[in-house]
């Protein structure tokens, strides 16, 4: 996944922030313990939402413990103890990592491709370990394979509708969120996953658009801009309202699905989830739309929470506030 799903920390209460960090560290620990220490390098903020949503829906609440972390063993960290939601997240992450590497190998060129090829054998080993330990994940693995094949087919066919192109990834994430849950919870989780998947796909396409325009790689927004005979940057600014509204409405759909869960607002994960869906994701959307393709310092680096919060720089914070308040 991509690291587009983060809380908006200035509006997060201190204890909720601490909880979020504990959940992040908890997921990381489960990745190390249940699958492989290598997997924790693929940890993104997105997985914390997955774990939090599943905790909310199953009603489980692991206790926070103080543990040392392999990356920074000198300091003790609060981390949530092992729980089914955490383990499932680690397993799903292993399958997703393997599939996304395969996807990169077919899409990328040069050094990036070589890098992905080198990482493939350990990722394949992680996948088989997951399937050995939790045979129920075989369904999910097949679903991921099918949906990514559907995505490749759409890309080859040159699908110019961003929503149509987002559909396979949306279905894929719906399946990841809903995997192994009971009927009612599974429906809610699927709906959340689908909306979040749509958001991630569209935002990633916006972010990659300038790069893809240069390299000629597939991107629905580049194809849309060609239909109007303008550059993709012009297209993105001309249709900003439309794209931003689509992203925000996906967040809203995810939130309106979650409020159908029983006693959602008394669960300790809710403040974080609410912040992510109502502020974090919209904020990220406007940040990416402001400067598509720009390097975002905080994007997806696994060590941010472990070594202390570095987001965002002071000047940046003021800018961000301005854009949210206005």
């Amino acid at each position: 996944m991509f690291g587009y799903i983060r809380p908006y920390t200035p509006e997060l209460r201190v204890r909720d922030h601490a909880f979020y960090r504990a959940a992040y560290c908890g997921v990381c620990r489960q990745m190390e313990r249940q699958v492989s220490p290598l997997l924790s390098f693929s940890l993104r903020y997105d997985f914390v939402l997955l774990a939090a949503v599943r905790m909310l829906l199953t009603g489980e609440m692991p206790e926070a413990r103080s543990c040392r972390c392999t990356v920074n063993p000198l300091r003790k960290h609060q981390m949530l103890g092992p729980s089914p939601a955490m383990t499932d997240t680690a397993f799903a992450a292993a399958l997703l990592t393997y599939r996304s590497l395969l996807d990169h190998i077919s899409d990328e060129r040069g050094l990036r491709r070589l890098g992905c090829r080198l990482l493939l054998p350990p990722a394949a080993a992680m996948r088989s370990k997951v399937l050995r330990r939790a045979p129920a994940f075989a369904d999910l693995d097949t679903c991921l394979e099918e949906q990514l094949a559907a995505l490749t087919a759409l890309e080859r066919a040159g699908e110019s509708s961003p929503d149509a192109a987002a559909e396979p990834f949306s279905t894929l994430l719906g399946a990841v969120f809903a995997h192994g849950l009971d009927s009612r919870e599974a429906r809610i989780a699927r709906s959340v996953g689908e909306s979040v998947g749509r958001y991630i796909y569209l935002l990633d396409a916006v972010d990659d658009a300038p790069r893809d325009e240069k390299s000629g790689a597939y991107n629905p927004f580049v194809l849309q801009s060609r239909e109007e005979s303008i550059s993709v940057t012009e297209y993105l600014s001309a249709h900003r309202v439309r794209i931003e509204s689509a992203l925000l409405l996906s967040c809203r759909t995810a939130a309106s699905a979650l409020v159908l869960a029983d006693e959602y607002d008394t669960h300790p994960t809710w403040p974080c989830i609410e912040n992510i869906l109502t502020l974090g994701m919209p904020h990220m959307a406007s940040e990416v739309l402001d400067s598509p393709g720009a390097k975002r310092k905080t994007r997806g680096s696994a060590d941010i929470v472990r070594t202390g919060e570095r987001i965002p720089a002071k000047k940046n914070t003021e800018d961000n506030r301005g854009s949210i308040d206005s």
Partner: protein
Amino acid sequence: MTDPYKVLGVTRDAKDEDIKKAYRTLARKYHPDNYAGSDLADLASEKMKEINEAYDQIQKERAARSSTRGGTASGPAGEHTAYTTAAATLARVRTLINTSRFSEASILLDSVPTGERGAEWNYLRGCTLLQRGWYHDAQKYFEIACYMDPGNTEYQAALHNIRGAADQWGKPYNTASGCSACSICPGLICADCLCDCCGGDLLRCC
């Protein structure tokens, strides 16, 4: 049956206004319009029914207890207006959309030849996409419909609704402006002036 007060998240001794407020907040949250693009609409309507029943029950209980007039509550219901147009196909599509048969509506829309796809076709296509959560494409078709038929209020309202809903999202929680230190003084002075007009005095100093 579950405790109606618990359903609305209020205490038994809550005032009528608080109950009404809690009911409105919940009704807004679970309103069918919020689930237009979702297959969870049935779960939402269950929740809505539960809230309506709880509110009705509290109203009845309170009316019986105090024998004063009790408010009658009815849940907000989504209204679908059926339009008749010259194009029979599009009229059929509208009926299908109004009865939530979106995939059939989509197939029927696809069958309309490209040359005959006017403003209404684009609008209806937008409606079917909206239900699937394809918000980007839905807006695009609504925009085209508005462009082709600029005077049509229905198309404008569709686009306006979707943008409005998105606009309300992504705001910090504490946007409501309360009574601040700066607003107290002008408020008091204003109240004093009003009292002065009626012959009284609120603030002795002015």
